[in-house]
């Protein structure tokens, strides 16, 4: 297994799990087939493995049940939260205005983090699909209503906490019961406090309660 062709095969084998990569590269080294056939074998196996993932409900729930609708909702929440800060800039800063603005941004962070965590925990291996499902509405909105960088960034305030949540969800997969309950309860306040989403926002609360159920199941003695 030498030559430029095989370096592509080895690079493509990175799409496979560690154990399967070793087995497949060993089989190819032994069979002495050409690099082209080896590449087809590796890519074919990687594609089959990936398609197998979609036979489960998890990738569908993470991408189309959560990432796609939640990004629409969170863009609205981001704009609503940023308007709270407009009030601070336009007039005299009062404790109550500051409190409301801060509580709104905390709610946004909690909601986005929770949704990101759920996406990362529900389907780690199809994060690319969830990322596409999240980006599609964002790109649509940005292309439909182009604006200066300030208005663009207002739409995307949710992104940083959501990405943080995805990263944690990939690592940890489940939360402690108390924290999951806190997030789920806090998320229920978002549609009310930000006055956005209505039933749509309430329908998107399922990841919070999913995380609660998961934490509860794991905390039960076996």
């Amino acid at each position, binding site marked *: *297994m030498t030559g430029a062709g095989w370096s592509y095969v080895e690079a493509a084998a990175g799409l496979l799990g560690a*154990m*399967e990569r*070793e*087995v*497949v*590269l*060993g*089989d*190819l*080294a*032994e*069979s002495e087939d050409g690099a082209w056939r080896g590449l*087809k*074998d*590796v890519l*074919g*196996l*990687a*594609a*089959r*493995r990936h398609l*197998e993932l979609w036979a489960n409900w998890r990738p569908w729930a993470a991408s189309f049940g959560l990432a796609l609708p939640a990004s629409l909702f969170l863009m609205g929440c981001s704009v609503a939260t940023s308007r709270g800060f407009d009030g601070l800039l336009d007039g005299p800063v009062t404790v109550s205005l500051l409190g409301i603005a801060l509580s709104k941004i905390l709610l946004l962070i909690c909601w986005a983090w929770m949704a990101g965590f759920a996406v990362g925990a529900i389907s780690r291996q199809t994060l690319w699909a969830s990322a596409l499902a999240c980006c599609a509405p964002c790109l649509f909105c940005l292309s439909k209503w182009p604006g200066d960088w300030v208005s663009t960034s207002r739409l995307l305030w949710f992104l940083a906490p959501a990405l943080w949540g995805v990263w944690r969800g990939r690592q940890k997969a489940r939360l402690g019961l108390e924290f999951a309950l806190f997030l789920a309860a806090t998320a229920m306040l978002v549609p009310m406090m930000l006055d956005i989403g209505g039933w749509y926002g309430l329908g998107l609360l399922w990841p919070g309660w999913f995380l609660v159920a998961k934490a509860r199941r794991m905390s039960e003695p076996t």
Partner: protein
Amino acid sequence: MLGEFEYLILSAAANLGDEAYGAAMRSAIETTAGRACSLGALYTTLDRLEAKGLVDTWMGEPTQQRGGRARRMVRVTGEGSRAAREFYDAVTRISRGTAWADGRAGDLPGDPA
């Protein structure tokens, strides 16, 4: 009931015995059955057979020939042998009396006279 490719894999593994692993099984299927066999089809089918309890697989020792990489060894279970026998019997029974089973050369349905 097994699928045709599942049956080929079980038969190749059974014939190879202690030397049944990916590359050897692929070579056996391609040379004996005369059909192309991709590693993707082989390993996903092996996983399915293992999930059904028809084969056991485990990681073997690395060898020099494979660049120091391990093999995924395969062994047909008792249940796998029974399933393969069932498939073989069914194919043998249904084939009885057909031109291709009786070896009547030049008498194959669909062949131009």
